[in-house]
C-alpha cells in the first residue's frame, strides 16, 4: 500500500468533518473518493496533503507516518495535489507555473516540461500567458501538469472532471491512464460516475464524513442499493 489512512478525524473549527475515515490506496492504482457534495471528499484530500491537518488518526505514506507534517514536507516526499479550484498562480506565466513545481519539489523522474507539453499541447502554445489570463479548461490542464512536474508517487486530484465537456472528460480519462502507466498512483475525488468507472480500479464512498462502503468500481456500480443511497443525485 502506498497510502493508508486509519481512523482519521478532521475538524473545521468545532465541526467534526471527517469521522474515523480509514482507506487505502495501492501502488499504481487509481482510486476514487465518491459521495455527494459536502460529504468530506475535499477535506479527506486536504487532510492527506497536510492542508487541514487531522486532530487524530494515522496517515502512512510509503511506509512512513506522515500525519502532522506540513504540506511542503509531504510534497518533497512525493505527494502532489490538484485542488478543485485549481489555484494557478495568477501572476506567473503558464511555463513558470509548471517550472516552479519542479524547482521546489526537487524530485527527479519521468515528468518534465516537454513531457507535460506532450500530454497537454495547449500548454506549450500558452507558454508565456499569465495564469490570470488562462481559460478554465487550460487552468485545469495546467494544474494537473503542475502536479506532475513534481514527479510525485501519488497525486491527489480534486474534481478533475468537473466543468469539462464530455469529449474533454474522455481525454482526461486517457490522460489519467497515461499517468498511471508511468507509475504514478492517483487518488481522486469526483462525482462523475461514468468517468470514475472508466478510470478507477476501486472506490471509497463517503457519506456525512464517514466511510460507508469500499469496493471495486465495478462492484460499486453493480450494487444498485449503494448507488441509489449514496451516489445518485
Amino acid at each position: 500500500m502506498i497510502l493508508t489512512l486509519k481512523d482519521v478525524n478532521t475538524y473545521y473549527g468545532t465541526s467534526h468533518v471527517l469521522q474515523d475515515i480509514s482507506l487505502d490506496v495501492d501502488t499504481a492504482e487509481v482510486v476514487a473518493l465518491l459521495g455527494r457534495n459536502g460529504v468530506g471528499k475535499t477535506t479527506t484530500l486536504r487532510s492527506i496533503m497536510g492542508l487541514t491537518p487531522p486532530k487524530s488518526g494515522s496517515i502512512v505514506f510509503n511506509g512512513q507516518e506522515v500525519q502532522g507534517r506540513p504540506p511542503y514536507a509531504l510534497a518533497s516526499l512525493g505527494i502532489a495535489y490538484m485542488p478543485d479550484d485549481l489555484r494557478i498562480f495568477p501572476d506567473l506565466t503558464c511555463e513558470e507555473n509548471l517550472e516552479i513545481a519542479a524547482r521546489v519539489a526537487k524530485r527527479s523522474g519521468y515528468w518534465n516540461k516537454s513531457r507535460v507539453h506532450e500530454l497537454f499541447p495547449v500548454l506549450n502554445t500558452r507558454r508565456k500567458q499569465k495564469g490570470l489570463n488562462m481559460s478554465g479548461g487550460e487552468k485545469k490542464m495546467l494544474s494537473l501538469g503542475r502536479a506532475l512536474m513534481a514527479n510525485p508517487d501519488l497525486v491527489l486530484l480534486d474534481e478533475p472532471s468537473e466543468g469539462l465537456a464530455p469529449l474533454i472528460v474522455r481525454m482526461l480519462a486517457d490522460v489519467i491512464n497515461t499517468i498511471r502507466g508511468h507509475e504514478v498512483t492517483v487518488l481522486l475525488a469526483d462525482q462523475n460516475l461514468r468517468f470514475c468507472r472508466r478510470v478507477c480500479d476501486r472506490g471509497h464512498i463517503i457519506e456525512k464524513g464517514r466511510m460507508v462502503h469500499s469496493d471495486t468500481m465495478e462492484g460499486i456500480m453493480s450494487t444498485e442499493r449503494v448507488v441509489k443511497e449514496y451516489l445518485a443525485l
Partner: protein
Amino acid sequence: MLESLIHVCLAGLSKGMFIWLVASGLTLIFGVLGVLNFAHGSFYMLGAYFCYTLLSMFSDNFWLGLALGPLCVCAVGFVVERFFLRYVYHLHLPYQLLLTFAFVIIFDNLVKILWGGGSIGSPTVTGMAGSVSIAGRLFPTYSLFIMAVGPLVALGLWLMLEKTWAGRIIRAASSDREMASALGVRVPALYTGVFVFGTWLGAMGGGLAVPYVGLLTPGMGEGIIIDAFVVAVIGGLGSLKGAFLGALIIGLLSSFGTRFIPSFDMFLIFILMAGVLLWRPQGFFGEAS
C-alpha cells in the same frame, strides 16, 4: 523663481527616495507576509546607529559602516521574526500591530541605553560632503547620490522579483501561500528570509540617512515610518510600484509644502492620503477587495 522650483523639486525627489527606501521593505513584508510591521522604523533607526558606530570604529569609513551596519540589523530582524512574529501570523491584525509596536518601544529604549538619550551629530562622507551647482544654486552632492540609489534599489527589486526563481517563488507564495506550500515551498523559511531582507532594506535606509539627516536621535524611526505608511497606503498596500510612486509624490508634496506653506507641511500629506482613500480605498496599485 525657476531656480527655486528646480531646487524644491530636487529636495522633494531626494526626500521621496529616502521614504521609498524605507517603504520598500515595509511593502515587501506586507505583500508577502501580510504583516504591517510598525517596527520597520526601528530597523531604520538601528541601521543608522549601527552604521554610525561601525564607521567610527573603522576610522570614519562610511561605506564600510554602510555595508556592515544593516547586516547587524538583519540579525535583529531575524530574531524578531523567528522567535516572536511567527507566533502571531494566525492571529488577527491588531495582535501583529501590538507586537510590532511593542518592539518600537523596546528598540527606542534600547538605543537610549546603548547610545544615550541625546542626539548624535553625524559625520560627513568623504567625497560627498560638498555641493554641486545646479541651476545657479548649490545642491548637496549626497542628496544627488540618494536620488540615484532609490531608482537603483527599485530596479534591483524588480529584477529580483521578476527575473529570478527566488522572486517567482516569493510572488507565488504571496498570492497563494497554501498552494505554494502544497507544491513544496517551505513557507516559514521563506517568510523569515523575506522579513530579514525587508529589514535589510529599512536598515540601509537608516544607514544612508546618517550623513543626510545630520542628527541621530532615539525615535528617529517614528517620523519616517509614518511617511512610509502613508506611501504604502496610497500606493496600495503590498505594491512596490505603488510605494515608489507614492514616495515620489509624498517627497515632492512635502518639499513644496515646506517651501510655500510651511505651516501646513504635514497637513498636506494627510489631506492627500484622505483624498486617495476616499477616491480609491485600495490605493493606486492595490487590488480591490
